Structures are given as C-alpha cells and as structure tokens.
C-alpha cells in the first residue's frame, strides 16, 4: 500500500480532459459554421437545443449511475418502455396528466429493480442493466405488439412546440432537470453519499453510509429521468415507438464521459454532461444539414466517445 496518492501524470492532459466537451463543442460549431450557412442560424440552433434536451435529460439520469461507479445500459429499453406506457394509457383514455405519471413511474420501477439487483444482490452493473435492457424491451414489444402508437395530445404538442416567448419548454425542462441534479449531487446529504459511494465504497461503508440503499437510489434516479425523457420523446414524435433506442443509450453514456465525469465513479459534472449531450446532437444535426450519410454519423459519434475515453485515461 502506498499512502501518497498518485499525482496526475500530466497536468495539461488532465486539464484538457476536463474541458473536452466545451472545447469540442466550439470546434464542431465552428466547423459546421464554416461548412454551411444553414447551421449557425437561430432557427437551427433552437431546434438543435430542443433535440438535445431529450438526450440531456437522459444523460443526467445516466450521470447518477455513473457517479456510483456503475452504468445503466437499460435506458435503451427503458426510454421506449416509458413511451409505450404513455401511448397505451393515453389510448385507453387515461387523462394525460395521469398517463404521464404512470409512464414515469414505470421507468422508476425499472430503475428500482436494477438498483436492487446491483445494490443489494451485488450483481455486476453491466450485466444487470444489459439483462434488463433485453427484458424491458421484450415487455414493451409485447405490450405494443411492436406497433408505434400515435399520441395526439394538445398538451404534449404544446410542450414540444411552444415555450415562453422564444424560450422553448424543452429547454426549460432540461434546464430544470440539470439544476435539480446539480443541487442534489452537490448541495444535499444524499448527493454527498452518492459521490462517496462512487469514490470509495469501502470508505463510505466505514463511515456507516448505507451503500446498498445509495446504489439503489442512483439507479432509481436514472430510471426517473429516463421516464421524463421518454415523455419528451413522445411529445416530440407525436407517438410512442416501441423499438430499442440504442443510439440514445450510447449517446447518454457518451455525453456523461465527454462531460468529464469519471466512469470509475465519485466525480460528476452536470454542466459537462449537458454540454456533452448538445455536442453529440450537434454532430448529428450538422451532418444532416451538410448531407453526410447517417452511417458516418454513428462513426463520428463513436470516434468522439473513444477520444473522450482516451482523454479520461490520462485523467486517472
């Protein structure tokens, strides 16, 4: 055992990793601005930020799993699960407010099950959420028989399209989620315990922190925000698509990693995760405008993630 902590090997690279997301965002926006006059327009940036909002909320949920040194792969299925619940209940004539609550609650249940398996049964996070990804996806397809359900709700439509003046509701939802997550992580006892469990589970247990319960709470919070994102997705698409959302899954993890949170837990950056979400959405948006094949988009997103992981390696 050595008592002295290993100092960062290279300070500059560690710094670079912390500012990877905002730095890359500037570079990407500049590149697209040079490439096309249609990118940096008020309309496009407004739409881009609306599209980013869903991913941002999802990434904020992922942030909770990552901060306790875990990962939530189930969001790829939990997202359409919430959407399908909303679609099914709305179709059945349940009032929209209640339908939204049921959808979000359904996602929380998935999170609680994940958290129970990871926290109390001490199963590997990766395997647990991979398993529930498959199980929840199957349940969703059974519920919907694989069909997309149209949800026509003036309320959801208003949320997706309107706002206060030029400020869109989606931005406000994402902003509110970000502020709440930040306050929870850095200004409450629960947040301190989340950071402690991620940073040093043994040390946290040593001070009497209920590590199992904290892990469960982290996955429940991931489920909660996934549910909110699911409702936003239905509002934006005007319907509930039951198919697996692997793009959203990968992007949510990528946004958190890009944002500078440590995948080894104990370090969180809320602003970073949101910036990461905007960055990834910008890539997709810019490529679409320029007319680059969507196959290149996935390559670019993957490359950005690998680059972020490389930078994170130097932070250790």
């Amino acid at each position, binding site marked *: 055992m050595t008592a002295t902590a290993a100092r960062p090997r290279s300070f500059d690279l560690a710094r670079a990793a912390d500012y990877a997301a905002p730095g890359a965002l500037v570079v990407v926006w500049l590149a697209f601005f040079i490439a096309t006059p249609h990118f940096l327009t008020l309309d496009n940036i407004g739409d881009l930020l609306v599209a980013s909002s869903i991913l941002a909320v999802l990434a904020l949920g992922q942030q909770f799993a990552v901060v306790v040194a875990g990962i939530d792969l189930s969001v790829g299925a939990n997202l359409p699960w919430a959407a399908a619940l909303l679609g099914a209940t709305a179709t059945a004539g349940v009032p929209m407010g209640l339908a939204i609550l049921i959808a979000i609650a359904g996602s929380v249940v998935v999170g609680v099950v994940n958290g129970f398996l990871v926290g109390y049964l001490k199963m590997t996070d990766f395997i647990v959420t991979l398993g529930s990804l498959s199980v929840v996806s199957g349940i969703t397809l059974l519920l919907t028989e694989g069909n997309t359900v149209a949800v026509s709700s003036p309320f959801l439509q208003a949320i997706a399209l309107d706002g206060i003046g030029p400020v869109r509701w989606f931005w406000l939802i994402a902003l509110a989620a970000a502020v709440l997550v930040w306050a929870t992580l850095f200004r409450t006892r629960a947040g301190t315990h989340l950071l*402690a469990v991620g940073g040093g589970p043994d040390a946290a247990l040593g001070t009497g922190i209920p590590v199992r319960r904290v892990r469960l709470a982290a996955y429940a919070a991931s489920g909660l925000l996934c549910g909110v994102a699911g409702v936003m997705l239905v509002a934006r698409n005007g319907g509930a698509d039951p198919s697996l959302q692997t793009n959203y899954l990968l992007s949510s993890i990528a946004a958190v990693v890009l944002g500078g949170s440590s995948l080894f837990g104990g370090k969180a950056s809320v602003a970073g995760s949101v910036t990461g979400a905007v960055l990834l959405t910008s890539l997709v948006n810019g490529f679409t405008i320029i007319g680059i094949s969507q196959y290149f988009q996935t390559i670019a997103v993957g490359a950005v993630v690998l680059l972020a992981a490389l930078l994170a390696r130097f932070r250790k």
Partner: protein
Amino acid sequence: MTSETQYLLEARDLVKTFDAVRALDGLSAGFAEGEVTAIVGDNGAGKSTLVRCLTGVHPPTEGQLLFRGEPIRLSSPQAARDLGIETVYQDLGLIDDLAVWQNLFLNRELLRPIPLLGVLDRPRMIRESRDILSGLDVNVPSVRTTVRRMSGGQRQSIAIARAVTWGKSLVIMDEPTAALGVRETAAVEKLILSLRDRGVTVLIISHDLDQVMRVADTVVVLRRGRAVARRPVADVTGDRLVGLITGTIAEAA
C-alpha cells in the same frame, strides 16, 4: 494489574477462529481511560484480529468485551461507533475526490433546518472543519481542497482528526505511520501526543518499537493470539520488548 481495575474497554478470554486458524486464543487485555496503549506483536500475533473484534468488524467466536465494566456485544462497526469508538485503518477511509471538510463530516453532515430535503449547511461545516484541524495543529492548505491533493502525512492527520472528533471514548489507530516518511511520522506522532494531553483514550498498533516508547503510556504484547505482557512503557526497554515479542523472554501477563 488485577482484574478488578476498571478499564474503559476490556477483552476477556477472546477467541477468534477462522476455519482451522485460531487467530485469537484466549486473549485478555485492558485499555485504560485517558491513556495511549500500544499493541505490539509479530506478524500473525493477532493484532489486526483484535482490532477487528474491538471495532465490531469480526465478532469474537468466544469470550467477552466489557465497556466501562459492562458486557457489550459489538455486532457491527455501527455498534462500536455508537459507543464512541472510532478507528483509523491503514487505508484511512478517506474519499479522495471529496473535500477535506466533506471527509471530516462524512455521514455526519450538518444540515440546514429545512425538513426532508437534507440540504447541507456547507458554511458551518467548512468553518467547523477549520476549527477542528487548527485545534489539533493539523496544517492543510485549505479545507476546501480535495483529499487527493494532500500529502500522506496530511491524509493521516485528517483521518485521525475525524476519528478524534467523533470518537468520544476511544480512538483506535492501525499502523498510523507505516507508510509515512520521517518528517510526516514526526508530525503524526506529535498529533498523537497532543491527543494524550487532552485525555483522549488511544489504542495504537505499531511495528515501530521506538515509536511505541515515544508515544505510548502502556504497551501490550501479543504472541500467538494471547496477550503475554502488559507494562507501563517507562518500565520496559526496547530490548526487553523485542524479547517479549519473539518469546525469548517468557512472562505471564
């Protein structure tokens, strides 16, 4: 000493077996209030097992623990903490990425008087952390820096300061200077001596016999799972301690 002497914490005939291994084999020892007691012994003598029994990590297989003369059962680390027994393990139990003040108040956070939300009273914890550390003459650049940036001696001192702050009755230290350099060891020893001056009861495990002579009032020697000697430090020499540890001097406790 006779068994009528009331100790703060006393172990009577402790036995702890791990499968076929008898790590503690009828160990009896007492720890007097307000004293620094050192536990010495060769590797495998049972030092760490004794500490784990005293802190509720491993309940003993047989035997009794008495706290202020009353029989107690320490079924968990929390039970020990509830009695005001705090332990500084070799890994220190600090969270590297949290600030010094967050580590000092970990799971004992001071909250603002807002029900249910659990909102941290950061200014008060930061202020009190400064008071705790300056009261113990522990120097850190700032209590708002993360522990990761601290030197080994500073980390050890922070862990000890936390144990002293919450360990109202007994502070147990497992090899507190094993990983430290000469200067940092001196600083930690100074801290331990200042604890003795304040009447804190300390139990320290150490391999360093010179250190035992410097900081302890009483030394308890373990050999093969038993306490073979309990002596005031003033009455023993380093050579005699070595003899007791290795068994070349046989002596009843």
